[in-house]
């Protein structure tokens, strides 16, 4: 499976972390090397978007994604009761995985459509990476306006490892 991107939104609906891995070679489908090496894409030179059509920025993507998961999650609760939540949805291009903590932190991951459920993986990221390296880091603030404190070395490195070694 391939992980395209990963986002964390805080309780103030702000995207406090985003990370994209090399996009799926959608335009260059020629070689079926369906596993792009997982490098962080430098935002400046990054290809336009995950699914490669318009010139959206990652910021725009984050906003779109937040709007989508927020609506879906509210709809799930309206229909299925307060404790219901949505877990994943799939398009013909990608699959979105969702995990929300009781503190309203939302973890979102986009993968290829063949990927199995990432709910447990997202929970692991929350428990083993986010809580250990962001929440407990004295040099990170308690909240992260603008993403301050989430993008620290320990967190980023371990996320990279988790995604490249454990998930793929």
């Amino acid at each position: 499976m391939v992980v395209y991107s990963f986002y964390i939104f805080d309780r103030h609906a702000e995207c406090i972390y985003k990370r994209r891995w090399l996009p799926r070679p959608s335009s260059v489908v020629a070689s079926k090397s369906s596993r792009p090496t997982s490098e962080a894409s430098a935002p400046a030179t990054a290809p336009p978007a995950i699914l490669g059509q318009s010139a959206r920025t990652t910021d725009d993507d984050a906003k779109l994604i937040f709007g989508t998961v927020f609506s879906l999650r509210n709809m799930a609760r309206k229909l299925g009761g307060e404790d219901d939540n949505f877990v994943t949805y799939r398009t013909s291009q990608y699959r979105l995985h969702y995990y929300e903590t009781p503190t309203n932190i939302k973890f979102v991951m986009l993968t290829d459509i063949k990927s199995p459920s990432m709910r447990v993986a997202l929970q692991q990221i929350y428990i083993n990476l986010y809580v250990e390296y962001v929440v407990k880091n004295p040099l990170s603030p308690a909240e992260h306006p603008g993403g301050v404190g989430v993008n620290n070395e320990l967190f980023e490195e371990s996320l990279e490892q988790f995604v490249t070694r454990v998930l793929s």
Partner: protein
Amino acid sequence: MSSATKASRIGEELWKTRVDKVNAELVTLTYGTIVAQLCQDYDGNYQEVNKQLEKMGYNIGMRLIEDFLAKSNVGRCANFRETADMIAKVGFRIFLNIAPTVTNWTSDNNQFSLVFDENPLADFVELPDDGRAQDELWFSNILCGVLRGALEMVQMQIEAHFVSDVLRGDDTTEMRVSLVRYIEDEMPPDEE
């Protein structure tokens, strides 16, 4: 099984299996130096020290709740009574290895007391004998802030304060906790 008994069991189990430990005295003495530093920085203005401790606790609470959820994996509480048991029997157990008694509920179920038999933060402590500290300083006030910060993160606005403390010569150490309101989800600021 009552929610209190159930919570007690969860708390005991987590304490035994999921919690990394350190020497209790390191924590106790570290907290002592924090309070002492504040007393020094605020020049013995104990009201201000109480306030600062509460603020620090609030910051801690906001972080601590994440660790609590990560360790306990418990879901949302059905009501405030259940929340109280969860705080007393699971929260206090996994962070301070104590389980204060939940008592003195108001009839609307929005206010209760936590009564502490033990308080590791105050081990080794005697308040300054300056004629004021025993009337003005709430040594463990950080705990009020912790509850406020932690519960705010799970969408409950509460107010907490100590009403008695054995360090002040009272027979019990008691904290009063009141539910102010449940907090609505925040929307993105620039929602079209």
